[in-house]
Every structure is written in structure tokens, then in C-alpha cells.
């Protein structure tokens, strides 16, 4: 039964480009990118209990590094991609070291502040980042000689990366380390007493989460072939955080659903409703009122209640 559902999903995702128009293929590719990004943030927010408002740092930094290396150093994607991931992860090691001196709202604020520093640097360090003009003239990679310039090929590429990313994040959460992580979220003192190094558990999660954020950043810059400081802004971070919370933090499907909701409101519904920003606000408020734990757990709860009621 469960297998059938997964197979159906796989077939639907694989077949989507064959039935949908170019616009919908591209929109779905962007949902994949946003979903990977939100899922990586969920490791911190949902499983680690550490709300970050600076996650755009990793998306933006990886994108900028890759763009800068290809534009100014003339390197190919085979080099820029791993180098950008490595560079971003190293910065995350340092930022994690600073940020994890705090927890809770302090953590939220310090991640916000650090990401603002990156944002300000991108805006002001014009000789490297081209400031407000952003870096343009970028290309998409061609893994195994397959060009990703078409909507369909990029769709499969983004899908593949997203599946790998989500799988590896799910394995991380399901591992004994993931159990320890949830322990530090719920009972930090007890975990400490049990001999776990709470700080190190959090720090590793921070870096791992930033790594997948960086992966989504590469997808982002490949897709857009352009990077602008706006991608490092509070708005960009907040959008990911809102996606995680709206979908349901601490669940695997939650961030995916949340990211999809925001992406569709912003890019699809906005074509029909002029005041889509207000609508998005109302959607968030309604979600919080009716499903304070997020859409995915909320729907699951309703579904179980319905089944219970039907079976008497």
C-alpha cells in the first residue's frame, strides 16, 4: 500500500514534464529548489529547536561563490560547484561557532545579524559582487555532456538533486545522531547529563544544514543564471522559515509543502489576485489558527480523526 503510493508519486514526478507546459515545468523546478532550501533549514528549526533567521546566507553565499569563480576566475562548473560548497561549509563552521553561543530567540537574532553582514558585504563590495547590479552572464552546468538549458532537462536535474538531498537529510534525522539531536531539542539538560556534548551535536547539525542550504544555492544560481544581494536578505531567510513553520517543522514533508505553498502564492496565484501579499498573510494567519503545528501535521491529525470517526 505504502509502496504503491511512493511509486505513484515517482511516476507523477517523472511524467510531469510530458504533460505540463514549459511554465509549469519551470515553476516546479523552482519549488524543488525552495523545498531543498526549506528542508535544510528544517534540520535546525524542526529537529534542533534552533530557529534561524539567517539561512539565506548559505543559499546566497554558495551562489555568489560559484558565480564569482566562474566569472572572475574563469573556472568550470566541475571546479566551482565543489569549491563553492566547501567555501560555504567552512564559513558555516565559523558562523555556527559564533551563533551557537545563543539559543532560542538569541540564536534567531544572531543568525539574522550574521546574514545581514553578508548581505551588506554583497551590496557594498562592488569590485567583487557588482553590488546592486548583481552578477550576471552565468551558465548552467552540463553534467555528462547533457545541457541543462532546457526546462525539462533542468527539471530532472533539480528533481534528482532534491531527491538525493531530502533522502540524505531524512537519513540524518533517522540516525542515532538524529535521535540525539531531537534529544537536545527537548531535553538539553538531560542529554548533557547523559554524556552528550549538546553544543557539538548542534554545531554539526548547523554545518550539515548549511551544506544543504548551499546545495540549494547552487541550484538557485544555475536556474536563475543571476545572483543579486536580495537573495541574502532577511526577506529571503524569512520566506524559508515561514515555509518550514507553515508546512510543519520537524516533519519531513512539512518544509516541502510549506515551500510549495509560498512559491505558488507568490508566482501562480499572484497572476490572478493583485493583493497577493495580503492573501499570503491571511493564509499564514489561518494556518496558525486552525493548524498551529503546521499544515502537514494538521492535515494528518484531521485525517486520523476522520478515520476514527468513520470506523466509530
Amino acid at each position, binding site marked *: 500500500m505504502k509502496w504503491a503510493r511512493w511509486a505513484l508519486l515517482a511516476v507523477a514526478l517523472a511524467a510531469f514534464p510530458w504533460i505540463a507546459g514549459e511554465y509549469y515545468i519551470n515553476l516546479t523546478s523552482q519549488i524543488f529548489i525552495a523545498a531543498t532550501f526549506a528542508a535544510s533549514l528544517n534540520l535546525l528549526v524542526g529537529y534542533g529547536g534552533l530557529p534561524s533567521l539567517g539561512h539565506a546566507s548559505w543559499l546566497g553565499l554558495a551562489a555568489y561563490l560559484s558565480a564569482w569563480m566562474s566569472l572572475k576566475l574563469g573556472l568550470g562548473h566541475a571546479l566551482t560547484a565543489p569549491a563553492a560548497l566547501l567555501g560555504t561549509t567552512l564559513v558555516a563552521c565559523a558562523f555556527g561557532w559564533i551563533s551557537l553561543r545563543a539559543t532560542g530567540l538569541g540564536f534567531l537574532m544572531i543568525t539574522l545579524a550574521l546574514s545581514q553582514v553578508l548581505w551588506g558585504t554583497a551590496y557594498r563590495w562592488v569590485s567583487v559582487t557588482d553590488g546592486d547590479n548583481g552578477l550576471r552572464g552565468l551558465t548552467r552546468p552540463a553534467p555528462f555532456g547533457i545541457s541543462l*538549458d532546457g526546462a525539462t532537462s533542468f527539471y530532472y536535474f533539480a528533481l534528482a538533486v532534491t531527491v538525493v538531498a531530502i533522502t540524505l537529510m531524512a537519513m540524518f534525522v533517522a540516525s542515532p545522531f538524529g535521535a540525539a539531536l531531537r534529544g537536545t531539542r527537548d531535553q538539553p539538560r538531560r542529554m548533557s547529563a547523559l554524556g552528550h556534548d549538546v553544543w557539538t551535536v548542534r554545531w554539526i547539525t548547523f554545518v550539515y544544514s548549511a551544506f544543504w542550504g548551499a546545495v540549494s544555492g547552487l541550484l538557485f544560481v544555475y536556474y536563475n543564471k543571476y545572483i543579486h544581494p536580495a537573495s541574502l536578505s532577511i526577506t529571503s531567510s524569512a520566506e524559508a522559515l515561514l515555509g518550514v513553520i507553515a508546512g510543519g517543522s520537524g516533519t519531513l514533508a512539512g518544509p516541502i509543502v510549506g515551500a510549495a505553498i509560498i512559491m505558488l502564492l507568490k508566482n501562480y496565484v499572484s497572476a490572478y489576485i493583485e493583493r497577493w501579499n495580503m492573501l499570503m498573510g491571511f493564509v499564514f494567519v489561518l494556518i496558525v489558527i486552525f493548524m498551529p503545528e503546521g499544515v502537514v501535521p494538521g492535515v494528518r491529525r484531521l485525517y486520523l480523526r476522520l478515520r476514527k470517526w468513520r470506523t466509530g
Partner: protein
Amino acid sequence: MTFNRRRFIQAAGAGLSASALGFPAVARAQSGPIRLGLMTVKTGPLASGGIDMERALVQYLKEHNATMAGRKVELFVGDSGGVPAQSRTKLQELVERDKIQIMIGPLDTASALASDDYIRSQQLLTLSVAAAEDMTQRKPNPWFTRGTSTSSQSAQPLADYCAKTLKYKRMLTIADDIAYGHEMCAGFQRVFEDAGGKIVQKLFPPLTVPDYGTYIAQLKTNVDGIFLGFAGSNGFRFYRQFNEYGLRGKVAVVGGMTAFDEAVLRNMGDEALGIITSCWYSADVENAINKRFVANFRVDWGYDPGFYAAATYVEAAVLDATLQKIHGKIEDKQAFMKTVRAITVDTARGPVRFDHLGNVVGNVYIRRVERKDGRLVNRVIQTYPNVSQFWTYKEAEFLKNPVYSRDWPPAKNLES
């Protein structure tokens, strides 16, 4: 008449899939309506200008029965929120779903740059409002035409006016710390210093600065004039605070094309009187087309059209005239581009034509804020005819220099 095969297949595929997904399929016949896209901003800090862009374009279509060169025109509007990545997504929506054949917009430089490679790959006809210099200079986009101006195109004549007519010798510049501000101030500086003046101070406050007090305290007051290169609400806020500090009347203020726009003036009082600005448009420009434009716009919305409203109204006129010449065959992109770059059109801003890079050559007006019928207007006091983006410099020599920026031309006369 070349019919692009790839696009046809895409269109057919999209039609099929659209019906598969349960959306109404759109047939794309040659004789069908022209599908015009407007990329604008209707949410966030840039919304004021973006909404004016839509209003003026809708007005143009209304005045012409939504018909150009005998074909109906259908308008599709995208709201980018002023965010570059979103602007690109919205453009894809307009192109891939709404099948637009030509775009007017976007509003802001970053959005134009973010869409640059997409415009090239889709060969999308574009009539831009954004002022990014290099899109018609060192990295020209072959599908890009701009009927408004580059960032510095209006600032350069103003510098000439300051040096030669107002006889200013020492000036300072202040503008938003974005490419638009940098380019405008750089162009102003170059022309002013080439005419013998000196720019003794350059300030670039961040775009989202909470308070200008600390910058106002830094202003040198022993200068002949201050050039303001702000856009949107920032110029308005800066000037109000400038007044607060009692500097009005002590130092003369001149402004770039967006600093004292009609949209800003309608919320200002006597403090704005006498300020001199330059722009490729003013609601006060005397010609029959503009008279009708302003009158109709005032009837509908109760205020004078400014920079952004005029931008789409002018672009629409350029589009209309080009289509007349090619008998409405917008499908022939090569012919469209060839025609638009050779055409001369009478518009609300006066006659315009285009250089071989796609940028406008047209009048730039020196304007002074005056009171007329109880409201503030930008009264035209001098016209610089047929101003090119290169001002009076030779194109080849101009393009050999780096693009205008914070650091170029170098400021040799700064005093600390």
C-alpha cells in the same frame, strides 16, 4: 516572414498540456490579438511608480481602442515586487504561459539585469523602463529598446546647465547607494568637471537608511549647489530633513530625473518651490499628445503623470508607431527590431528616435518647481534637444571607458 519553429512546437505543447491540466487552452493564431506584457511592481516600496506605469499604459490602450496597427492588443501584467529573482519568474510566466510577444518594463535596474539572458534566449522584444547603462552600452542586448533614458542621460545635460547657465563652480552629489545612483552621479560629475567645475563631496547613503540626519550633518555648505540623485520616497525624505536642518535657501538644490517627480511633488509644499531638476519628461511639456495624456490622466486619477506614467505611455507610442510600419506583424522580430531602431516617433515627451544600441535619442528638459493652478508643477525652463546617452562625447571614446560607477570617473577634487 520567419516563423520560429521552436516556438510553434512549444506553443502547441503548452496548449495541449494546458488542456490536460484543465486550464483553457489558448490558440495562438497569426491574426489574433497582439499579446503585450507589462512587467511592473505593485507591492513594496517601489509600488507607487509601478502602479503609475500600469495606469498610463491602460490609458493608452483605452485611448486607442486597445488596437494597434489594426490588431487588438491584449495586456498581461506581472508584479515582480521589485525582487530580481521574482521578476525573472514573473517574466517566464508572461512568456511561457501568457505567450506575450513583447514586454514593456521592467521598472528597476536589477530586475532588468536579472532578465537579461532570458530576454536573449527567448528573443523577447523588450521596451524597457529600467535605466541600467550597460544594457545599451558595453553589453547591449539585441532585443532591448529603451524609450526613457539611461541613468545618466538626463543628469549630463543638468551638469552642463549648472556649469554654463547657473555658473556653479563647486558642487556635491548625494544619491542612493545603488547602481542607478552611482551612474547618475558619475555622469553628472564627468560633465560638470569637464566644463570646469569641481565635485568636492560625494555621499551614497544606503537605500534603507532610517534617518538622513547623520548625512546632512556631513554636507559641505560652502558649495554652489547640491545634486540629489534619489529615487522613490528617499529623495522626499531627504529633502524634508534637509529643510528641518535649516539648509534650504543656504545651499541651492538641483535634482536628477526621479528626485522631484510629479508623484513626490503632490505631497510637498512651498519648500519645493524653485528647485531645478532635469528629466526627459514633465507633465508641463508643451505638445498636443502630452496635453491630451495629462488631461485624461488627471480626469481618471486626479493627479499629474510623472516619470513612471510617462515611461509606459511613451513606450506604448513607440510600439504603436513601429507596428504601423510593419503592418502589425509583430511575429517578425527581425523586422520589428530593424524598424524600431530606424523610426522617429512623436510622443508625449517630444520626438524620439533610437541609436544603433537601442537607446533613445530625445529631448531632455530642465525644469523648475513652480506653482500653477494651486499645485506644484515641474515647469520647463530649457530644452536640450536630441540628447544621446553619450551626451556630446564620441561613442567609441565613451564606450572605451569603464561603465559609470562609484569609482569611475575618479573623483579628483574631493575635499575631506
